[in-house]
């Protein structure tokens, strides 16, 4: 089950997970999960609720350490690092329940995302040193560009907590992109979005990929997953149930069995 899968692409894997296990009390959230993500691809992670998808995300971003197993980013070990250090290494994420800085404007949210890209400290800021002012100006322009990229530039000065939910999702993605990640983890970005918004989101994810960002996507919306992902992992009870291209996954009998009865998703798989 944990046999390393063959690589369709020439490039070396950007992220490699090797036998990751994680338990909470008696619940085995992840068991010997291994996979690889090649640079510039989109890997989808699907599975029923409670299958361990978000746990996997949290382990990758070091929100909690794995019980066993190893994680490599570009052959560099990344487990047991501080969450904020991973950002500098090039991993950024969004959250399942949007976690914006609600009391700040949309623009400011994105500018927090640039934290690792800028370096102005307390005293440089207070003294308004020329380079700090220049850096601030450039950061602001780049942040505006990112807002335009996701399509909400006109709301730059709005308090982010007041934005409609769909735009909050987009803002969160813009904020994550501001950290200039090599690997972007999207945790159910389409949840709560309507069909139009979801299509626009798919389009956005494609555009992000074209900029060379590798994407790890947890998503319940099968339409979206199947269309944009290069490869898909199916998790069930913390184990990898299947691994392959969207076509392979759709015809996998084990997946079919696992999803039987979960009316929410099963029709989508076979449509």
């Amino acid at each position, binding site marked *: 089950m944990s046999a390393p899968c063959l690589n369709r692409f020439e490039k070396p894997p950007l992220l490699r997970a090797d036998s990751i296990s994680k338990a909470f009390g008696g619940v085995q959230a992840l068991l010997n999960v291994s996979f690889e993500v090649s640079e510039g691809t989109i890997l989808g992670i699907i599975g029923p609720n409670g299958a361990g998808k978000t746990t996997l995300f949290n382990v990758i971003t070091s929100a909690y350490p794995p019980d066993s197993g190893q994680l490599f980013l570009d052959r560099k070990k990344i487990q047991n690092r501080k*969450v*904020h250090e991973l950002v500098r290494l090039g991993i950024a994420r969004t959250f399942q329940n949007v976690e914006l800085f609600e009391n*700040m*404007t949309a623009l400011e949210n994105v*500018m*927090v995302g640039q*934290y690792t890209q800028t370096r*102005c400290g*307390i005293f440089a800021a207070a003294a308004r040193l020329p380079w700090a002012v220049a850096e601030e100006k450039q950061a602001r322009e780049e942040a505006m560009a990112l807002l335009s990229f996701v399509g909400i530039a006109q709301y730059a000065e709005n308090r982010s907590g007041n934005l409609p939910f769909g735009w909050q999702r987009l803002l969160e993605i813009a904020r994550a992109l501001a950290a200039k990640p090599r690997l972007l983890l999207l945790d159910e970005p389409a949840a709560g979005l309507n069909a139009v918004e979801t299509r626009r989101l798919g389009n956005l994810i494609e555009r992000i990929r074209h900029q060379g960002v590798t994407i790890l996507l947890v998503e319940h919306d099968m339409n979206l997953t199947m269309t944009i992902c290069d490869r898909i992992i199916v998790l069930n009870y913390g184990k990898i149930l299947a691994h392959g291209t969207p076509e392979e996954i759709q015809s996998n009998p084990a997946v079919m069995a696992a999803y039987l009865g979960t009316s929410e998703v099963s029709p989508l798989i076979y449509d």
Partner: protein
Amino acid sequence: MKPECFKNRLYYGIFLPVIAVSGFVIDSPYYLQVLTFIGINTLLTIGLNMLMGYAGQISLGHAAFYGIGAYTTTILTVHFDFSPWAALPCTLVVTGMVAFLVGLPMLKLTGYYLGMGTLGFGMIVYVLFREWSHVTGGSSGMVGIPSLSLGPVSFSDSRNYFYLVWMIVLVCIVFCQRLIQSRVGRALRSISDSENAAKALGVDTKDLKLKIFILSALFAAMAGFLYAHLVTFISPGSFDFMVSIRMVTMVVIGGMASIWGALLGASVLTLLPECLHAFADFEMVVYGLILMLIMIFMPRGLTRGLMDIYERSVSKQI
């Protein structure tokens, strides 16, 4: 951004002339002294507001830093004959070091537990002030702190001291205003909204919280320095638990996450007891009542509350 900027200019526009003019117009050293105390309390409140309002970390022991500032400069000037100006950097360094050493383990705590931890720290420092009597003078306090002077300008004159304190307050206000609009400030504010998200964006929240903790301790130390050289006497009673609580109250009454709120909160709570003398034995009852009423009717603090009332009355007229 635009209306914020405008409001800010407006506040400076009110603040600067009021300070400049009141220094000229007010002749009575008493009023100048009360205004000076407002300035000192504003310093305390601004620092604490950076920590509470912006970084979202509570401290119920900030009087300790205020006291460490006051005692360090006192000990240096009285026991070691330092000039106050030479004692100032030492005071800031000592307080900064203490804040660093205390903050490092303390900021691991969250919410009320952090409140409890800082409260405990404040109590320990208070006991040290009281019991380490051959250095700190014990409960009776220390006398003979020199007044400040700079060349020909003597700050034992109330007016000069008034200007000195408010100059420093102004510098601190500008400092904080710029800080919260900067990269660090944004990261700071992001912590109080969602610490998880801030971390996930690469903000070293632990480090940043510690920095702000130290910064707010430095503000308190500065206030302590100014207090010691104004009153020229200090005793542990000025830095006890109730003083910490009063500082927190000033922050919340003025309005969290608002530099101008800190100024307003400090002003109101410093003036209030002076105005309530007439109530004699009823003073406490009235004071408590006013505190409650302000919070009940303006839960977001005086600045926001007054602004809301103003905006409502304007919209009603239209």
